[in-house]
């Protein structure tokens, strides 16, 4: 099946004014093509949390998005420190974010679980000192 929309975004490191721009743009596209509001919301939450993680933990990275008539696939990757214990990182409340990040409103340790709850398929590939890639799929029906 051919993709109807393909987009690529750069996610700059430590820039909190533009963090979320990619998610905001994808959200607009989904609304414009008539995806149901609750699906737009689930996709937005999952992508935004992954985008923020790339900013605060991964030294920035990139997003690749493919949308066809049935689903959206979002791939967010970074070349940062990677996650040593993914099972631990997935636990609600677990965070290595410093206080400076928590003062900005992030670092609740809920990001990965919010991504899992809001995506239909989630796959995370990560290696210490190599980086992290998060694959999120949300079906439209």
């Amino acid at each position: 099946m051919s993709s109807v929309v393909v987009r690529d975004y750069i996610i700059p490191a430590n820039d909190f004014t533009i963090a979320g721009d990619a998610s905001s743009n994808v959200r607009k596209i989904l609304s414009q093509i008539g995806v149901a509001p609750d699906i737009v919301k689930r996709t937005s939450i999952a992508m935004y949390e992954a985008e923020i993680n790339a900013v605060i933990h991964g030294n920035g990275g990139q997003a690749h998005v493919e949308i066809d008539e049935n689903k959206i696939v979002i791939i967010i990757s970074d070349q940062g420190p990677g996650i040593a214990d993914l099972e631990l990182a997935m636990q609600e409340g677990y965070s290595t974010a410093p206080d400076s990040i928590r003062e900005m409103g992030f670092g609740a340790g809920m990001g990965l679980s919010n991504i899992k709850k809001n995506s239909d398929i989630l796959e995370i590939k990560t290696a210490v000192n190599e980086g992290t890639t998060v694959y999120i799929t949300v079906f439209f029906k």
Partner: protein
Amino acid sequence: MYSERRNMKIPEIAEIIKAEICTKNYDPTIEIYSACSADLMSDVMAFSKSNALLLTGLINPQVIRTAEMMDIKAVIFARGKKPLESMIEMAEEKGIVLMATDYPLFVASGKLYKNGIHGRGE
């Protein structure tokens, strides 16, 4: 002394917590069903109710971003914090109402709860 859960419109909310409405041209017919008070944005994103209001002590562009992702209709900044002009512009663009109150977060939340906006909406 406590009101049954009910929906509320922006002007009434502003009156109850003596808030200044910072954004222009908002829709006075928007109905708020539920509310969430938080300073950590992932806690907000773990909360999924429609037509919600966010009360927060945090003030930065990511609050507006989070509200956008969550379809949150209005954000109240507590304890006298005022949004920057750039945040107001961003919110207006996204159709989100911004309000600022001098009450601390706990008191602002309590006043709204007492008047009928509960955490659980439709």
